[in-house]
């Protein structure tokens, strides 16, 4: 870990300012080589300086440079941050210049890896930072920031504390069996505690899953037969939100994929229109292909035509999406009604994509379905890494097995073994207990080892 690493730490080309971060023993001396301004080797730590980045005599950019010396830095190493005026080519030139002068290009997450290995942050924070690096939207950046400052840790800390109270009580009952004046944890008391713990874990889990949605975005698939208005709906939504649009090669006029933002939450939209073979007359909707997309989706937008009766394939698909979070969208509401719907457990929104009607209502519906209002609050106590969620699910399973044991009247001290395991698992989330797999996971994620 002796080499000095550098990377652009802001999204390229997006902001007005881009930051290039350099960390390692030689970071100050390397930057000094390409710097015109005060001697950075002599300035006090944690100060900002105005000057120029130069390639020999050629001035590249007018910049601000922050000098932070070890150990009070993010990585516990010397760090320099160069604030440039942005622009892809300028930022890239500065980075190239650094690399030519002795820096190595940092791998994704390597600053965090160093912070973790240098003992600067704990696991949960490290994972929070990893999320931050890959976060695509503002809201998910907030979430990542909140995880970094330890909100999740503190939630779990407090749950663990309550757990250890119960555990300690049971242990005392075991170690001092003859002392009557110590409260005995009976099966009934244990039942109470367990249902509380279960609820709390479930709460964190629910929020975590919403957290995952914030971070990874809501995979949304639009299905329906050709010409029912899928593409116009997508276009309308994209236009509405003026979001990032990716053109997929091979399509002629339809945009088949795109990201939109609803209140800061990313919806990754896929229009199945461009995917299946519309010339296949036997299977107009492309049931098989749609099914594959539905499988992966968090949200299904099922578009139907107001002035047509349901076709067999549509009925079949309606049956298939019953288990999914689905919104039925009835398009072309301005024509004569011919559609007869069986009773279905889905919310229905009537729109006219052409006349831009009902789009607002659809947005609201999506917000309600995913509890996005709740996420509005500034308290982002969500866990968002898959590892944490899987550990929490293990905890939840254990609470279930304790409940079963209690039903069978197994001794409380046996149940307590599972209680301790929960305590350990929660500790694993915050990095307070050690397990080989955990370290393996972390190392594989940070791709350490040459």
């Amino acid at each position, binding site marked *: *870990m*002796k080499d000095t690493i550098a990377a652009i730490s802001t999204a390229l080309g997006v902001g007005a300012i881009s930051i290039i971060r350099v960390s390692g023993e030689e970071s100050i001396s390397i930057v000094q080589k390409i710097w015109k301004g005060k001697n950075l080797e002599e300035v006090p730590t944690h100060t900002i300086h105005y000057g120029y980045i130069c390639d020999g005599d050629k001035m590249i950019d007018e910049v601000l440079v922050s000098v932070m010396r070890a150990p009070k830095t993010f990585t*516990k190493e010397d760090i320099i941050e160069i604030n440039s005026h942005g622009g892809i080519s300028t930022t890239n030139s500065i980075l190239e210049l650094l690399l030519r002068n002795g820096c190595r290009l940092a791998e994704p997450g390597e600053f965090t890896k160093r912070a*973790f*290995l*240098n*003992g600067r942050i*704990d*696991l949960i924070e490290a994972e929070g930072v990893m999320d931050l690096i890959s976060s695509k939207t503002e809201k998910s950046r907030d979430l990542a920031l909140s995880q970094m400052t330890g909100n999740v840790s503190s939630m779990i800390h407090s749950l663990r504390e309550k757990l250890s109270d119960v*555990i*300690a009580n049971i*242990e005392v*009952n*075991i*170690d*001092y*069996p*003859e*002392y*009557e*004046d110590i409260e005995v944890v009976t099966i009934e008391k244990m039942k109470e505690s367990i249902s509380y713990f279960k609820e709390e874990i479930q709460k964190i889990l629910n929020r975590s899953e919403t957290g995952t949605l914030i971070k990874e975005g809501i995979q949304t698939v639009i299905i329906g037969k050709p010409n029912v208005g899928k593409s116009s709906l997508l276009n309308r939504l994209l236009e509405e939100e003026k979001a990032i649009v990716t053109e997929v090669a091979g399509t002629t006029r339809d945009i088949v994929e795109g990201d939109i933002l609803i209140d800061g939450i990313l919806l990754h939209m896929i229009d199945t229109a461009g995917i299946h073979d519309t010339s296949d007359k036997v299977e107009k909707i492309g049931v098989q292909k749609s099914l594959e997309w539905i499988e992966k989706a968090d949200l299904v937008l099922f578009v139907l035509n107001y002035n047509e009766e349901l076709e067999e394939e549509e009925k079949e698909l309606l049956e298939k999406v019953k288990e999914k979070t689905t919104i039925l969208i009835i398009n072309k509401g301005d024509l004569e009604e011919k559609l007869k719907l069986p009773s279905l457990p889905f919310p229905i929104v009537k729109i006219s994509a052409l006349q831009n009607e009902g789009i607002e209502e659809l947005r609201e519906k999506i917000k309600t379905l995913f509890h996005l209002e709740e996420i509005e609050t500034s308290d982002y106590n969500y866990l968002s890494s898959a590892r944490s969620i899987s550990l929490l699910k293990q905890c939840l399973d254990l609470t279930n097995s304790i409940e079963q044991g209690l039903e*069978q*009247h*197994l*001794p*409380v*001290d*046996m149940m307590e*073994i599972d209680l*301790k*395991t929960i305590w350990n698992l929660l500790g694993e989330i915050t*990095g307070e207990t*050690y*397990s*080989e797999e*955990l*370290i393996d996971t*972390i*190392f594989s994620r940070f791709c*350490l*080892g*040459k």
Partner: protein
Amino acid sequence: MQEIIVVGGGHAGCEASLACARKGHKTLLVTGNIKNIADMPCNPSIGGSAKGIVVREIDALGGEMGRNADKSLLQIKMLNVAKGPAVQALRAQADKITYPKNMLKALQAEENLEIREALVEDLIVQNGTVKGVVLEDGEKLFSEAVILTTGTYLKADILVGDTRTREGPHGEKPSNHLSDKLKEYGFDIIRLKTGTPQRIDKSSIDFSKTKEEKGDSVYRTFSFDNQVYYKIEDQVPCHLIYTQPETHQIIRENLHKSSMYGGLSDIKGVGPRYCPSIEDKIVRFADKERHQLFLEPESLYYDDIYVQGFSTSMPRDVQEKMVHSLPGLEHAKILKYAYAIEYDAIDSKQLKQSLETKVLENLYTAGQINGTSGYEEAACQGLMAGINASLKLEGKEPLILKRNEAYIGVLIDDLVTKGIIDPYRLLTSRAEYRLLLRHDNADMRLREYGYQVGLISQEKYDQFLEKKKKIEEIKELLRTTKITPIPETQEYLATIPTTPLKDGISLYEFLKRPEVQFSHLKHFLEIDSNLEMEEQITVDIKYEGYIVKANKEAEKMVDLDNKKIPEDIDYDKIHNLASEAKQKLKKIMPTSIGQALRISGVNPADISLIMVYLKKEYHHESGRV
């Protein structure tokens, strides 16, 4: 000439000398007073939660404590019978006259063991290796290894109220210089404190105002020899009483006179958290209206009654008032006053897992000198120190019990890895895998080791193998014997009572029903077993799921414990190691990644750094692949 010298004849010293002598080494036990061999200066009981299991473990390994307790019982009972099998443990009231007498007999019966009355004040040290001991009068005794089991006798001070007297229990002469010498050799010395309550004349107690606590009505033994030396009906009862509002009043009014609360200003010793004095209890748990006290008989041969739970360092006149405020003790005659004792101990982090010190080669320590408290904790360390000192002289690897193998392993690992602040008592909660460390299976866990090190005779070992084989056979029989929902069976099930069968099931599965006992199985087939086997089979089957889970967890720990850290590792070469972690690692020098992880202040990030260093740089530097 002796090969091994054991200093101190308490519970640790006895086990240590017996282990060495029985392993064929000429052993000399040096003790301040032969009359105090295997003395019980505090409570008259052996065993208890977790501790009772340790006694079983000592017995399984070939130690003496279990057998000796069986020979000296006043009363015995199984604790936690209403709880799960993992936490059941035996506790006995042991006769304070008989127990030491029986132990002395056992010592004297050993050919290789010699006992000598003397005080040890220094060690003979050459090139960092201990070569013997120096007595008070300057006489030198040479040996190849030394085991120190000095108990509370290092610079012992007895504290009562505002008086401090330099003496050990029973007014014995303490060792005044040995701990200074140890300090000179490089040991870190800590000061600890413990206390003991009053002894009351039995005839002055009105037992009608107390609640009787009897022993069990079935025969119990600590030892796997299963030899019973007592009669159920002859067991001596204990008695339960409670402190009164008046008692609390007296204590509060006189608090400033207690040694611990201002009576003495120079207290350095740290007292045990789990065994607070009565004034501690009243100050710290002010809202508690009363506290339980047990009146325990000390012996059949004299009339002292021990007041468990009433330990104090109040002056004598206050103690009189306190005792007389208790129900049934209004006219009690105090035979011995309560006192606190302060003593020196070494920092247990300076020990290896074998109990050999890192400071001086061939020097072993066991018992209270290592910061523990309790007869059982002392005895098991003495046994391990004796075994390992002998193995070292034999040029063999030490016997190190893992945390999933024995409470003894838990205790020693805690001592050497975590160190102690207050006197260490074994608790069930210290064991991660207590379902594996049960009372019933101590022999299954440890007898093999006992045999290997030579403390278990061929005869006993064969008996053990026979028992093990039989248990397996019975389990197999239960697996293969099926019961079906025929009317006769259903009728019998209703008498247990348990729900009727739907389909045929094996007796093995049937026994898993919470309400079904082993005895119920005998309705369906004849089983050649004894109670001990039935107990173990029942636990193994009923809690199979949990045992499997615990074993899985334990495997993870064993994996980490098997990742060895080389002895010559230089922590200064590992960059970015947190300085607190580095300091602790250097002192404790853990032998495995697992042990390193258990050190408080060493966090997972540090462990990752060590592992990365070991995987890459260490191999390069040392030229290994």
